[in-house]
């Protein structure tokens, strides 16, 4: 009889994949089979855990032991020592750079201590291709609540109250933006998710799409209900094949379980999602060029007015938001705007996901409360500049640093 006593979570985000985590997963399956532990131990491929500099990452539960830079050659030792005998493999733990102290649990690592993982909560924790795991951690409760217990006005109010601002860079209040499309009178309205992420070095949106795609789908569905839309597009850059694959799987699963499609949760609300792949044009990250691209036209920005909320995709009222913005929405509905406001500053509530790349010790992905200083991000989370250099110049250009 089967009783699974341990889960081996291997990061399958693009960063770790390119460092060989695919082979690590296969090695685990082989070694576990060899040791006769297949009935007791489950191997799960998760999304990006964020500590990319130190990948491939492996976390073993129930202990929550965090192993770094695991190669296929290390797997036999981990299976023999940790899974079979219960002895942690010390040399593969994360070691604090200065004190060289081994830290078994990732929550104690400096990189994670200052983080507030809300949008990234499921990344590295669940199998992104298993809707069951998303549901087990509270997935689609936000949508259920919105559809069955709230009016569209109440949903918009809740998002306004949360203070959520667009995460695509402009920071426009999301609830207010939704109210514009909601106010437009038309039987056809569209919801668009901007997943073009053209900024060099940025991979926040990619990681959310690869690691927790259902969060984005749920956010879009809630937005669609709020503004009165029944159709949506996710515009993903073609250079993100894994994200596209995970989205396709997620949409199919959501449709099968009735979270997308017609009469969702037994209500009159219908919502169908399409994926539109980009074709390598940076400019299509701009909303009007993006919409032109979906329409099959040349990706050329146009002047506004008219704003998308009045006349957007195919001239219909359209609400377009960034991936991370949508990913915040299910949490606001599920846990409430008051909870959402417990983090952040007076004018900017919530968290922001940062991609740390370049000459920094801990390159990777981190989610921090709004209001944290650049110094904390670079030194406390990022681990400082490589080669012990002392000074750094910072220039802010829109949202890419």
């Amino acid at each position, binding site marked *: 009889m089967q009783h699974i006593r341990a889960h081996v979570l291997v990061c399958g985000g693009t960063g770790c994949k390119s460092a060989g985590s695919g082979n690590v997963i296969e090695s685990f399956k082989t070694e576990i089979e060899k040791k006769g532990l297949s009935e007791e131990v489950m191997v799960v491929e998760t999304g990006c855990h964020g500590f990319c500099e130190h990948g491939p990452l492996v976390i073993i539960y129930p202990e929550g032991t965090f192993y770094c830079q695991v190669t296929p050659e290390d797997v036999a030792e981990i299976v023999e020592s940790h899974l079979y005998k219960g002895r942690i493999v010390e040399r593969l733990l994360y070691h604090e750079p200065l004190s060289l102290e081994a830290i078994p649990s990732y929550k104690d690592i400096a990189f994670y201590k200052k983080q507030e993982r809300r949008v990234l909560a499921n990344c590295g924790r669940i199998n992104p291709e298993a809707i069951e795991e998303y549901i087990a951690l509270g997935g689609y409760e936000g949508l259920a609540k919105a559809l069955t217990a709230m009016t569209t006005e109440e949903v918009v109010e809740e998002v306004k109250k949360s203070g959520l601002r667009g995460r695509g860079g402009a920071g426009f209040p999301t609830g207010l933006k939704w109210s514009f499309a909601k106010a437009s009178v038309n039987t056809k309205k569209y919801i668009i998710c901007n997943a073009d992420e053209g900024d060099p070095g940025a991979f926040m949106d990619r990681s959310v799409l690869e690691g927790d795609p259902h969060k984005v789908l749920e956010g879009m569905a809630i937005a669609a209900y709020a503004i009165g839309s029944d159709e949506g597009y996710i515009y993903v850059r073609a250079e993100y094949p894994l994200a596209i694959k995970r989205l396709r799987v997620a949409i199919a699963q959501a449709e099968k379980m*009735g979270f997308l499609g017609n009469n969702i949760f037994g209500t009159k609300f219908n919502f169908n999602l399409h994926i539109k792949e980009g074709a390598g044009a940076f400019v299509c990250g701009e909303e009007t060029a993006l919409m032109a691209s979906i329409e099959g036209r040349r990706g050329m920005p146009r002047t506004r007015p008219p704003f998308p909320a009045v006349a957007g995709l195919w001239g219909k009222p359209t609400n377009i938001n960034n991936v991370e913005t949508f990913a915040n929405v299910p949490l606001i509905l599920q846990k409430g705007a008051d909870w959402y406001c417990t983090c952040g500053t007076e004018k900017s509530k919530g968290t922001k996901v940062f991609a740390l790349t370049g000459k920094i010790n801990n390159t990777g992905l981190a989610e921090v409360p709004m209001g944290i200083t650049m110094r904390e991000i670079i030194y406390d989370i990022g681990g400082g500049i490589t080669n012990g250099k002392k000074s750094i110049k910072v220039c802010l250009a829109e949202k890419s640093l």
Partner: protein
Amino acid sequence: MKSLEDLKALREKLQSDIRVRENDGTKIIIGMGTCGIAAGAREIMAAVLDELAVRKLKNVQVQQTGCIGMCEKEVLVDVVRPGEPRITYGNVKPVDVKRIIADHVINGRIIEDLVVGKMDDDKI
């Protein structure tokens, strides 16, 4: 999926599958040092997993630990229920496993004749 209640019921059912990642609930810790393994800890582990599978208990974590020095009393099995002291059972045989799970893990009754130790703080 017709309502929030339907979804919550489904969530309850699915939660047990990833419960292992929460690392909460009752813990059964089996001594897997060399002395433990020599005394038959792997057979005890198999018996524990079988019993948990038969009883469909999903909120119990099974962990291993090393040698704590009481080699004479291996196989040692610790049971920690949330908020209760950590109890160590010694000289555990596969036939004792059913009793440990039924009496202590599920009903909270310590099995006096198998006990070798008790720790109030479950940190060593």
